[in-house]
């Protein structure tokens, strides 16, 4: 429930300012940037994700540490399951829902 999953912004969408394509352990899904309106991340930034929304920007080192923490907590699998489940589990390539 309190899973905060680190991910890297790999693509932004000019027509959808509040969405970003994020990559977590090789899995790519769209997450919502609406909570980072005041501090917008750019491509290459790392963010902490919770229930499909980016909550804060973090450094790459902190992102790697967080992945390690999730693994130590035994939650790496749950985190990947959550990421895979975003967008109802659809792969990227689907048009953004407008």
């Amino acid at each position: 429930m309190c899973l905060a999953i680190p991910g890297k912004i790999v693509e932004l969408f000019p027509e959808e300012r509040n969405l970003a394509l994020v990559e977590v352990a090789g899995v790519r899904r769209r997450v919502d940037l609406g909570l980072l309106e005041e501090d917008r991340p750019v491509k290459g930034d790392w963010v902490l994700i919770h229930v499909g929304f980016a909550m804060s920007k973090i450094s790459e080192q902190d992102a790697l540490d967080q992945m390690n923490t999730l693994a130590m907590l035994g939650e790496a699998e749950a985190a990947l399951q959550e990421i895979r489940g975003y967008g109802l589990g659809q792969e990227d390539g689907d048009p953004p829902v407008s």
Partner: protein
Amino acid sequence: MRFVDEFREPELINKAADEIRRLAVPSRHYRLMEVCGGHTHAIYRFGLKDILPENIELIHGPGCPVCVLPMGRIDDGLTMAQDPDVIFAAFGDMMRVPGTQGSPLEHKARGMDVRIVYSPSDAIKLAQANPDRHVMFFAIGFETTAPSTALTLMRAKSLGLGNFSIFCNHVTIIPAIRAILDSPDMRLDGFVGPGHVSTVIGCRPYEWIAANEKKPIVVSGFEPLDILQSIVMLLRQLKNGKARVENQYKRVVPWEGNRAALAAMAEVFQLRPYFEWRGLGFISQSALRIRDTYAEWDAEQRFNIPGLRVTDPKAAQCGEVLKGVLKPAQCKLFGAECTPEHPIGALMVSSEGCCAAFYNYEHRKTAVVTNINASA
């Protein structure tokens, strides 16, 4: 110290452990509460209790949103979803939480359309993909999750989505901490403060704990080193007779919180006059309801809910364990009728519940030790 070698930076962890031992006055018994269920899980998983001296006791707080929700609210949600046109959508950790007629997963087995979503925005996708059905999203969580629900409601409104509603069970952390401090049977020396709730609300909301209650609170990260460092910071304050809010989790938590998140919450939610919490009873202004401006997407306004108050099964002592009055193993059902495989109460279902955490990391260890001793 058996887990220390597995940790990253074992030298720093040893240093923190040594500092804790140095700061803890031997004649004093320290009672520190970790508020958040994520910290409870981490403490058990990392075996941190073994690293702490005997006179430091960690008390588990009510920061597990699944655990504090009374059974009646589960029943209400499932009642609304009995209409075959309704799709019941919720996060994975809601699926096995017991209602009086079974959990959402058990209802699914009996034919109800129950779907797991990993984001509230996916509940909207579900509604768009199923225009002839109504999607009802069962929203839970503290302030970490409420902003995401808020943005989702704003999106539903801007889309004019007609077949979507949210059953809002968001709760707020400060009134729960206040209820704990007001409780006559709870004597605490300080708090390990929530990590991710604080990314939203910041550190200011905890200032009254230091100023009025004179207890130190340190907002903490989730790594073993974070939690141990937070305990060092608490002990330092206690040694100096101080009571302040400190932020150990600076790399993620901004002191002022997240303005966009707070603005979204204010737009969509208002405080309920009171709300019932398992174990803590009715707490005023402790939960969120959807504003009338979003009434069309409020499941409580669209559906008739029984609103029954349902108490936990008599033998289960979930409330007392939640309040910290009982340890998990002291509940009569623990480890026998109530296990993670067949949970009776929510504290055994959620990974943040102290019963599940205790069972998975402590209970099994004790059982192994007992068996070894018995066969010796």
